[in-house]
């Protein structure tokens, strides 16, 4: 049993099934990303944890207590909204004090003190007396973050925490979130559609697809071995090549009849629609017929396009009618239309299949 248990959660909106029997156990102190394309159910799941949405079936359990039917205001969780949702008529300090004011435990002076401390954590204490609209977007978001952590919630929920920020602010916020997480060990669940965001922030990535969990693994593990074609595609940077396994398991055949030896590659998985996953950083590009080197396998390919990136050249190549992306050195340059060979160590191969 985890700290936060989501058990068989299903949510239907009319005919649409937003969540389909999702079960997830989250340990105390973990930083979990719910990743997926829009409409995959990740936001619905977050809202169900917060209590803003009632599941059609299933249970939400925190610290052993079933809170499925509990109102959001009684759950002692905090959520940071994508639009920040600051109270526009209240000063920054009053916004941050609001959860404490609602809880009503401390004296007003103590509440103010705690709000100031939370503001100091996000380095906004000098702006305590401003109104939210006098702040930049990035500052508003840090106010929202301070407001979310001020009451020391059991779980911190973040809805697309970086999506409204420009590149530089994203990085700042990312660091801010990581530091807060390390310092307080807050159990954090956040929603994102951006694989980079998920991989960089989370300890654990839960990839969702059409209301179900597609893949649930550590950030590095899921990047290294996506497991399914959808995951490989969504996590990016991967080349996918449909293949058919040979009967004896010694090799695979491509759509154009090419054979590839897979000695040294991970064991073939169960499941349909087998695909070979190759990261562009693991693949070298050679003249057709050149010696790939000891223990390396090759695939015949044709250059479709080359993009000069400075230190390296990115090639789009075609293998058995599938386009792949690989990186090559500056020299030699292969012109579009050239026959080339892709060389790689079979140990770098990953498999993906529909399960």
């Amino acid at each position, binding site marked *: 049993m985890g700290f936060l248990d989501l058990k068989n959660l299903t949510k239907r909106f009319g005919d649409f099934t937003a969540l389909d029997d999702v079960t997830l156990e989250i340990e105390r102190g973990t930083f979990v990303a719910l990743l997926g394309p829009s409409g995959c159910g990740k936001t619905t799941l977050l809202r169900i944890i917060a209590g803003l949405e009632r599941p059609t079936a299933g249970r939400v359990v925190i610290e052993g207590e079933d809170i499925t039917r509990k109102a959001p205001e009684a759950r002692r969780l905090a959520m940071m909204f994508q639009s920040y949702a600051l109270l526009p008529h209240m000063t920054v300090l009053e916004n941050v004090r609001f959860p404490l004011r*609602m809880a009503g435990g401390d004296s007003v002076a103590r509440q103010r003190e705690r709000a100031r401390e939370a503001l100091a954590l996000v380095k906004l204490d000098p702006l305590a007396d401003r109104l939210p609209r006098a702040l930049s977007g990035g500052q508003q978001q840090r106010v929202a973050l301070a407001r979310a952590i001020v009451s020391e919630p059991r779980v911190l929920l973040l809805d697309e925490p970086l999506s409204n920020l420009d590149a530089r602010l994203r990085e700042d916020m990312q660091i801010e979130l990581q530091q807060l997480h390390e310092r307080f060990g807050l159990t954090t669940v956040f929603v994102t559609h951006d694989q980079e965001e998920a991989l960089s922030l989370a300890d654990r990535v839960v990839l969702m697809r059409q209301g179900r969990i597609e893949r649930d693994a550590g950030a590095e593990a899921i990047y290294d071995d996506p497991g399914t074609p959808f995951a490989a595609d969504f996590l990016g940077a991967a080349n996918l090549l449909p293949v058919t396994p040979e009967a004896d398991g010694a090799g695979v055949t491509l759509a154009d009849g090419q054979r590839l030896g897979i000695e040294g590659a991970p064991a073939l998985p169960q499941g349909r629609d087998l695909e070979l996953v190759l990261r562009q950083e693991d693949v070298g590009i050679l003249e057709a017929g050149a010696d790939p080197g000891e223990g390396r396998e090759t695939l015949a390919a044709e250059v479709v396009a080359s993009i000069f990136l400075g230190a390296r050249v990115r090639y789009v190549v075609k293998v058995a009618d599938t386009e792949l992306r690989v990186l090559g050195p500056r020299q030699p340059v292969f012109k579009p239309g050239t026959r080339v060979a892709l060389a790689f160590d079979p140990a770098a191969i990953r498999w993906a299949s529909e399960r």
Partner: protein
Amino acid sequence: MVRRFPPSALFGGGAVLLVILTFMLLPLAVVIMSSFTASQFLVFPPQGFSLRWYGEVVASTAYLEAAWVSLVLATAVTIASVAIGTTAAIAIQRRKLPFAAAFSGLFLSPLVLPTLIFGIGLLIVFSVYGDGPSLAAIWVGHVVITVPYVVRTVMAVLADADPFVEEAARTMGAGRLARLWFVVLPQARSGIIAGGFFAFNVSFDEAVIALFLRAPGVETLPMRIYGQLEFSPSPEVAAVSTLMIVMTVIVIVLIERFLGLARVSG
């Protein structure tokens, strides 16, 4: 590049604009100018210049009493109208009320129904089931016809407000009343003020319902003006009207200054 209109279109458009402005502003200008006349009768163009009629109005017990009645009435109407209209708008817009569309239509219907018919109906209702015409009856009638303004403005403002603020307040432990007080009412504030302003003005200006439900000895300012025009059209009427215009302008300026008219009406 800016597309240039042909001169004929510019001329035509300008002419239409001029006609519209003329009909909007000229009547007001006529009334204001007539109020400064030195003559005994309401004439245009005014003859000479004098503040005499303002003096007459200020010295007239009938006008002052009528103005006082109208002021009290409009204030009471505004209070009731804002309370009912705001509650209704919040319920329709935010609280997932069943039959929200039907309620919205019901609350807005007095805007399109003929006031005359409503006035007759109200008179019959009060005569059959109540004490007949009275100031209280006028108050009820005015509340009914002014509620739609409040409902409309508050609903419009709430439709623009971020609904996630209320959800955020929920996750921060705010119950229903706390959310109403700390989130929804502040969000509705500018709509409430605008709606209240409309309600006050409509009530202060209203003559049809007031005429149907007038009780002996009770006179509102529009009734007084109407009565005076019918029997002895003196320039006093123009002076009172000018004072009403000035009052309205002052209120608009105050709202603009402290709230911003764009925020209130938009």
